[in-house]
């Protein structure tokens, strides 16, 4: 049986096809303004990667911010449930999932079989999400792709204390104006987002194994500083950004 999971986020659209006991396709594209079109496009790419036709897909589950706009979905499931399931597939010993996406972040306590035991979310405030890093990278004229490594290269970290992204941005500008090395400011930015996320996640008690998912997972700076704040090791799977779509595809099998 072949199933598909489509995760339409605020910024990216992901699709996963599961069959023959493994992941057969894992494309990712920008979601743009037309979520329905993005859903079809990313699903087409997945089918092409897997060498399957749409009719061969027994069931399609849609998740993410734009889940109700996915044409042909048999069921919609929230990204919380899907990330838990997907993280469990990627790491069967997972007990805590930390998902940091473009516009929100979540902490999920996971039980046997990838079941959600509890969760906490921040989707009101840019601080603690990918958006925070995006705004800062722009302010510092650094490529987002280099952001994490730059943070880890700094011997010291500038202090960025504001909870609000807008305030924090003005703190960054002040640091620049006083001649603070860019790497140290970037390190401070990463520490700030890690602290913010750690506080939020602390509300679903953190237990090992901790898995980091979502687009920001591949930022090594955030991952390492989160480990520091939580006092636990954090596992970043190769398919971290696809955890939601993977979970959706697996749920489609039930």
């Amino acid at each position, binding site marked *: 049986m072949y199933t598909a999971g489509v995760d339409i986020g605020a910024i990216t659209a992901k699709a996963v096809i599961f069959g023959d006991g493994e992941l057969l396709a894992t494309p990712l594209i920008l979601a743009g303004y037309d979520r329905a079109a993005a859903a079809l496009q990313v699903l087409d790419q997945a089918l092409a990667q897997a060498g399957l036709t749409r009719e061969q897909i027994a069931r399609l589950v849609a998740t993410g*911010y734009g889940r109700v706009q996915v044409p042909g979905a048999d069921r919609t*499931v*929230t*990204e*919380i*449930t899907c990330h838990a399931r997907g993280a469990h597939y990627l790491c069967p010993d997972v007990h805590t999932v930390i998902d940091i996406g473009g516009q929100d972040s979540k902490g999920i306590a996971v039980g046997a079989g990838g*079941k*959600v*035991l*509890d*969760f906490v*979310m921040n*989707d*009101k405030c840019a601080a603690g999400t990918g958006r925070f890093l995006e705004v800062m990278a722009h302010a510092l004229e650094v490529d987002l792709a280099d952001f994490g490594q730059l943070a880890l290269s700094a011997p010291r970290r500038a202090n960025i204390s504001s909870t609000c992204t807008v305030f924090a941005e003005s703190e960054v500008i002040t640091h620049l104006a006083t001649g603070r090395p860019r790497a140290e400011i970037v390190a401070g930015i990463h520490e700030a987002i890690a602290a913010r996320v750690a506080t939020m996640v602390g509300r679903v008690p953190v237990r090992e194994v901790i898995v980091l998912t979502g687009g920001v997972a591949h930022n090594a700076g955030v991952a390492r500083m989160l480990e520091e704040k939580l006092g636990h090791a954090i596992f970043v799977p190769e398919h971290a950004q696809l955890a939601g779509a993977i979970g959706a595809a697996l749920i489609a099998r039930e």
Partner: protein
Amino acid sequence: MQSPVSNLQYPISNLQSPLGFLTAYVPEELFHAAGFTPIFIFHTADAHGFARAHLPGFTCWVAGSALDQALAGRLDGLAGMALAQTCDTTQGLTDLWRRNVPHIPLFHFGMPLRLGSPSARAYLLAELQSLRERVQALAGRPIPDDALRESMALYNRTRALVRRLYARAALGDIAPPDLYGLVRAAFQMPKETYNQEIGSKMQELSPLPSCAPAPLLLLVGPALADPVLFDVIAQAGARVVGDLLDLGERYFAVDAVEHGDPLAALADRLLALVPTPTKHHPQRTRAAHLLSLVQERSADGVIFARQKFCEPHGFDYVQLAHALDQAGVPHLLVELEQASQAGQLRTRVEAFVEMLA
């Protein structure tokens, strides 16, 4: 889905001597006996931009909206406005209203903080007498004891009817938007009319299919939460079987004694209600009440619908959540504000319902 309760609107202009109120501790019957029609000033999602010139942004929208509506002239038909001593924001609103909305006279009612102590009861009786005198002054005539008893009897009938609504909800037999549409209506129209109409409204509601194993939820929060929340809960396939909302089930749970000293009856009713977070009863705690409600209604989970910047409910949430954790009852916190995002609410509530399934 058009519900028979969705068009229960009563513009202020249709009402006789409407008297607005906020908080869950205003003795409505006192105003009713003086010839006023007490109506609760619910917050609306739209802002007219006036409130924030007086109320700082770090206060809840339940208070902000009332001031906003008043300053925008939307409440000009009110004969007066009443609020009880509850939280710091309400206390501040007393001052701001008196200064900035002088054409709508404000009645501040000093509901005591400590429930269950003899000195508090004595003070409450004196404060009720003081309020009676002030209301008489506005009405231009005395409020006889008999009129008070009649008003209490009328309100008791309303309370009994709302209890029937909740009894139906306890069986999972009424959709959340319908339940709260009907409860809310009790605060927005003359009780006489409400008592007559609610029976037929309840009959118009079709019973819900009992096939789907819908999760049974309790709600906790200030005022009557937010209509958008009830729609989201219904769409996620869950039922509300009871609540600890300030203006919800607890508000209608206790009747006033219809004979004897009416002020004593009003006082004793207020003292007997399950406390809201701003009141303190050393023995009768909200946590104990919530846990027994969970048991009684076989609730699968609890949703805390907190207003952002509401400190009493914010602190109280931690105590209640802890009690639920110890009892192994799942719970979810959603924070509502001036324009609550339905999409964000939906994600949280759906995820919670998925978790309970």
